């Protein structure tokens, strides 16, 4: 039986600035922030769970880091204290709090300070180093919520094969990140949006404090000239019961969007590489991750066009075996290194798809839907395989 201790290193605001504290984690206690331990527990991985106070040299320690602040000396001191505990192996878990584009300085600091077997768990698809293990916390959520109704969805979708779908495409933009609004605007200015898409987007009033993270200052002039601004926010199924229940929320799949469209435009979090842009976090060229947006399309076996960093789909197919192409549904744009060229290729691709008749798209959609089983690939190669790799390291 493997002994494992899961705890969080959390930050709160105290009288004299930020204070750091640890908190033991248990399976299923608060499932939204204990996805790894809950996944391992619920899937029957054999573990004896220890408290932080009873860690010893036989215990693997998984430390979930809430906030990565390399300028906070107290944070770094707390990390050092953890490195000095008496444990078997240490796993710095960066997934639960959805850390993306994590600075390499953080990894380097940990490697320098920790003198025992050390691993990182993050959601970077690119294999950067041997001590980094892949896990995506969204796996837990989609596997918890989607499968209950996936069969019903698939059966009704097959039943409705004889009926045309209302829209050609689905484009749920979510936050107003520059590349998303740029593409939305392209479709809008070419009169391709309303006619063809079920679409949504927030505007600047949705989390306004993050505006420059979404739209770097260097892009702001171009952004302000986008005609689509006159049409956003467009949030037709937001805010019914609470403001978090909107299209892109990972705990909910609005099946109607998938019933009513033949393909999805997946605008992932990052697209353009960014460095030294004021008010905006740098992106890493050796980092690529995807979100619940992609997982939903994969699980629903919905054809899609990916708006993300270069080679995202190559990683999904090479690393996990996802089956997302067929003869007449290819992703040539995916490998184009230059971001602007890739965006142009995506725009051409969309124009091309939209020039197809609904009847042809209908046949193409069902050819894709009937021939794919990405849910099985998700469960076996993506979710379970990631967990097994981590478990085997304990």
């Amino acid at each position: 039986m493997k002994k494992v201790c899961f705890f969080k290193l959390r930050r709160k605001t105290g009288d004299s600035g930020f204070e750091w504290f640890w908190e033991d984690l248990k399976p299923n206690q608060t499932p939204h922030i204990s996805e790894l331990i809950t996944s391992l527990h619920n899937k029957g991985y054999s573990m004896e769970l220890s408290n932080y106070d009873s860690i010893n040299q036989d215990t693997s320690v998984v430390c979930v880091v809430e906030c990565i602040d390399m300028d906070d000396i107290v944070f770094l001191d707390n990390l050092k204290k953890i490195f000095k505990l008496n444990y078997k192996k240490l796993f710095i878990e960066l997934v639960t709090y959805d850390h993306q584009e994590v600075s390499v300085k953080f990894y380097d600091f940990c490697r320098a300070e920790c003198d025992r077997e050390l691993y990182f768990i993050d959601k970077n698809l690119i294999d950067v180093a041997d001590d980094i293990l892949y896990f995506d916390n969204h796996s837990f959520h989609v596997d918890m919520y989607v499968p209950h109704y996936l069969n019903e969805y698939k059966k009704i979708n097959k039943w409705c094969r004889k009926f045309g779908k209302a829209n050609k495409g689905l484009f749920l933009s979510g936050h107003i990140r520059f590349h998303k609004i740029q593409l939305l605007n392209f479709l809008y200015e070419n009169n391709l949006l309303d006619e063809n898409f079920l679409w949504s987007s927030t505007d600047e009033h949705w989390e306004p404090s993050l505006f420059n993270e979404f739209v770097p200052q260097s892009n702001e002039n171009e952004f302000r000239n986008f005609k689509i601004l006159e049409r956003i926010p467009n949030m037709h199924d937001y805010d019914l019961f609470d403001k978090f229940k909107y299209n892109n929320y990972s705990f909910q799949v609005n099946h109607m969007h998938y019933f009513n469209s033949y393909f999805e435009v997946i605008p992932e979090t990052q697209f353009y590489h960014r460095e030294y842009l004021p008010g905006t976090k740098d992106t890493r060229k050796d980092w690529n991750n995807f979100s619940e947006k992609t997982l939903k399309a994969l699980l629903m076996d919905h054809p899609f066009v990916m708006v993300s960093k270069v080679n995202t789909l190559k990683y999904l197919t090479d690393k996990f075996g996802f089956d997302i192409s067929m003869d007449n549904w290819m992703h040539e744009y995916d490998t184009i290194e230059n971001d602007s060229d890739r965006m142009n290729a995506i725009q051409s691709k969309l124009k091309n798809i939209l020039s197809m008749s609904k009847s042809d798209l209908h046949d193409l959609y069902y050819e894709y839907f009937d021939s794919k089983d990405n849910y099985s690939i998700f469960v076996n190669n993506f979710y379970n395989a990631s967990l097994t790799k981590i478990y085997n390291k304990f």
Partner: protein
Amino acid sequence: MKRVCFIRIIKKQSITHIDWQFQNVKPFELIAELPTSFCEGNYPIEIIDYNDLDSNTSLVVSLTSTDVNDAFHLDALKKVFNTNCKNIFIDLSTHDHQEIPIQIYEFCRMECNKELYFLDKNLIDVADDIIYYEQHMWHAINSVVPNRVLNNFKQLNDWEKPHIRSKKGLFLSGHIRFHKLELLNHFYEKGLLDENFIWSSTDETWEPESFRQFIPFDKEAEYRKFKILERIPHMPDFDFNQIKKQGGYSPNANIVHYLSTYFEIILETQFYHKDTNDYCSTRSDWNNISEKTFKAIRLGNPFIMVSKPNTLKLLKDKFGFDFEMKGWMHEYDSIQNDTTRMESIKNKIESVLQYDNLHDLYYEYFTHKFNNDIFIENFYNQTLNIIFNKF
């Protein structure tokens, strides 16, 4: 075990003459909903061939025509009445006859000297020898909304509760009958159609030979002025695999429509009474419903009925259907005057479109109205029992 023979009378037409022939009907054949229903329901029935009829056998004769002016047809019926059998059931439902001329009933009663019953789809109790039967009941359960699809729908519908639906109403017009286009045009001219409804309609090129039946001569001038004509045909989910596969078509329900809307406007075949003694004529003592209504009942969808007066009252009184709750009443249903009823329906729909609690109202109706159970027990099974007990 009851002995029953099911036959149909069909017209055989050659260059030289027309003949009416008898054809045995077996369960699970096409257009054999009644024997199939009995068979699926495990009723103790022995199916007898027409040539083996005897005085212990009930004979069910489905008519493909109700033409009382065709002497050959009437002769064929007379032959039926002279057969040696226990009792006779003239089935006028299987071939979807509606607004049947009363002469056919009178002819049969006069010519038949045995125990005689009629099976038809008239909801109004006109005579004791007429038994209600609707062949669409079988289709509703087996192909329009099969149980497996219904169960999937219910689960998904529950799951979709947190999401606002894309449209308020569902308005599948089907054939261009005057009352349907009149209502569609009303909402179009008021700018309420596209914003609020998933809607569809054919136009004159869809079964053009029936145009005069859809639009009576005296309504044509008004019809030609409808602005909605510029927008039809509007068949967003028609014609994908074959021309007959359209949203309002009876073989299947487009479940996505029901997951995307909060209520349905059910446009039944007849609305305005017409006493013209021609093929447009309707009977004031006839009222029937179709697969359009069955879909809404099976799927627990709130609806507004555009049909003859008292359609919903008949469904409630005769079968116990429960279509009303606070916030969802059908006051218009009992209005006898067709024009006044149409105005009341227009007002009702406009009022519903202004509800700000349609989402909650929909789920309250969907959760508390169990009309599908009534459909199975009181409507389908009970109807079959009544017929079976007469055999």
